[in-house]
């Protein structure tokens, strides 16, 4: 029973990690309708920034969020404005995917050039301390990630539902042409949304950096799981991404312990395929269009 509880908690904590990375992706995916393959590299950039600020200024890694979130926000906006937007009306939508793949490769190699192949370790600052809660152990940093992911979901949902700009974002997501006719500056909404998605990754980066060593390939693993989480939850659904992350985290944790560590990815992707066959729109996806010209 103790082992079961520990595996359960491990799975939930892993879910929190996947959630905080997946939320930004689902925002970009659901609203700008661009598949951002460089999402993992945004995380890498944020983690390197958190590392540099923490070591240079000798501050707690969490405080770097003050700088890393705006940095990624601007980085996301620039990506949308100068890389994606010029291709928004391209005859073939897939060209945008290739741009993000190119950006991803460029960022990985840039990091290799700047930081070398060695990895950067942000000081854990006590966040890797294990708390014993009853029979289970959990890290302080993991709890914070879980809490932050939950708050981020609540915060974003409130923002999208209750503010003028949030409504504009949802309007653009529903029908770009109609939104433009209503006087919404669609390009600006896209730029800000891309920025918001990237800023979520900025928050994730500051929270994850003290837990995991940063390397130029750190994004490649997370981005695959983030895509699974987003598709599973229903593209563009923020609550869905959160719950999808929990599902994936739990399957990963339980399969690794009870089936075998080499089969964890088999388990994760089998469940992923099954859910998609039975519910192609994802767990929480409503019917929505993914076309740019709608």
């Amino acid at each position: 029973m103790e082992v079961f509880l520990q595996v359960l908690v491990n799975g939930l904590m892993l879910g929190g990690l996947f959630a905080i990375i997946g939320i930004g992706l689902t925002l970009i995916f659901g609203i700008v309708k661009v598949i951002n393959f460089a999402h993992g590299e945004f995380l890498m950039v944020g983690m390197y920034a958190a590392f540099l600020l923490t070591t240079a200024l000798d501050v707690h890694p969490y405080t770097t969020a003050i700088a890393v979130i705006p940095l990624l926000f601007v980085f996301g906006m620039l990506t949308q404005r100068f890389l994606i937007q010029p291709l928004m009306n391209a005859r073939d939508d897939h060209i945008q995917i290739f741009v993000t793949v190119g950006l991803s490769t460029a960022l990985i190699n840039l990091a290799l050039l700047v930081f070398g192949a060695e990895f950067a370790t942000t000081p854990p600052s006590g966040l890797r301390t294990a708390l014993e809660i009853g029979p289970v152990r959990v890290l302080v940093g993991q709890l914070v990630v879980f809490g932050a992911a939950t708050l981020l979901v609540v915060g974003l949902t409130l923002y999208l539902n209750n503010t003028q700009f949030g409504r504009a974002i949802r309007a653009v997501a529903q029908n770009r042409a109609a939104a433009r006719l209503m006087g919404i500056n669609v390009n600006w909404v896209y730029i800000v949304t891309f920025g918001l998605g990237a800023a979520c990754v900025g928050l994730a980066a500051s929270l994850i950096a003290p837990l995991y060593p940063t390397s130029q390939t750190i994004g490649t693993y997370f981005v695959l799981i983030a895509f699974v989480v987003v598709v599973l939850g229903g593209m563009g659904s923020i609550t869905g991404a959160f719950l999808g992350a929990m599902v994936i985290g739990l399957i990963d944790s339980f399969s690794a312990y009870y089936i075998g560590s080499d089969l964890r990815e088999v388990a994760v992707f089998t469940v992923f395929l099954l859910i998609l066959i039975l519910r192609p729109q994802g767990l929480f996806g409503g019917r929505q269009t993914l076309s740019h010209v709608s």
Partner: protein
Amino acid sequence: MGWSKTLKATVAAAAMMTATPALAEVTFGALFPFSGGLALLGEESARGLEIAVDEINARGGVQGEPVVLERGDAVDNNQAIGEARRLISRENVVAIFGSYSSSRSIAASQVAELAGIPYFELGAVADEVTGRGFDYLYRLNPTAEDMGEMIIEMIVEQVAPALDIDPTELTIGILHEDSSYGTSVASHQNRFAAEAGLNIVTTLSYPANIVDMSSLVLDLKEREVDVVLQTSYQNDSVLFLRQRHEAGFEPAAIIGSGGGYSMQQTADAVGTDLIEGVLNIDFTQYVVNTEFTPGLEEFVETYRAKYGEDPRSGHSLTNYVGALAVLEAIDSAEGLEPAQIRSAVDAIDIPAGTTASGNGVWFDENNQNQRARMMGLQWQDSRLVTVHPADAAASELRLGD
């Protein structure tokens, strides 16, 4: 790069047309990953080769001619092949030295084999490098198989006695990343452990870019594993060492297989407390009984003078010793034709314990050096100290209380 290569080739072509044989120098290829993700240890390996060449040139070169190294950048397997072709056909190298990475070596040595040019592998450990029946490929360094054998030998001869327990009563868990490096070392560990009658309770594999090992740690903890063998890169070494601590899993011994366990950065990342006492197997490192490694101190001094820093890993040392043995043999060869080089190299007979790395040189029928061995190491006071075999040990193994 392309422009300077073209320029070089043009100059070389012009030189070939006009040069007289009096200007002869002997060119060898140095094929390592000098850029990309493997650049750090590729460069470190090449430095050992360069020091060996300097030493030979100071003694008058090979067969009276100065030795020149032409670098080839094996950034990936395709480029390794391309650069091997360039070295052979355009630079007319006498032989190629390489390559640190097993996959680069396997790719590039095929080109050399077809061209009939000797290829001296100084650092790649995969079994397949010498397992292909090549005539022109020689490997000077110890292999993945030796790594597995050495780990089991160390458990039987040192770890079990230090814990005051019969080796067969230890429960051993094997943990490895699932690429060819981890898989091959783990299979050798399993085989040698079975031969020694040891009790392997589980073998767990995982992808090297794993982000959470808590389930694996829990598995090992529930099985009450005494000795954990991990074959891993850096990320997963750090992850395991941290997560086993966080989960309150305290095995009596943890033994790495080179990779992440040999790097100072891993020690820095996990901190002094967690790395202390951790065991490892790798090429000869610098804290060793120098009676077994005569010339080690001179090597380190030369290295410092040439590169202005301490060696960053044992790769340079192992490459230096291997290259020096080959260059000395070529010096005594009849000429520089591949067949003459081969017969000179086949005749090398250097006993163990007489070189700067302690490795001897004697090639078997597969052209694998049978006198090269890994060493058992332990992190003691934040340094990687040699503890096995006994004649090379710089310190006693510290385990238990």
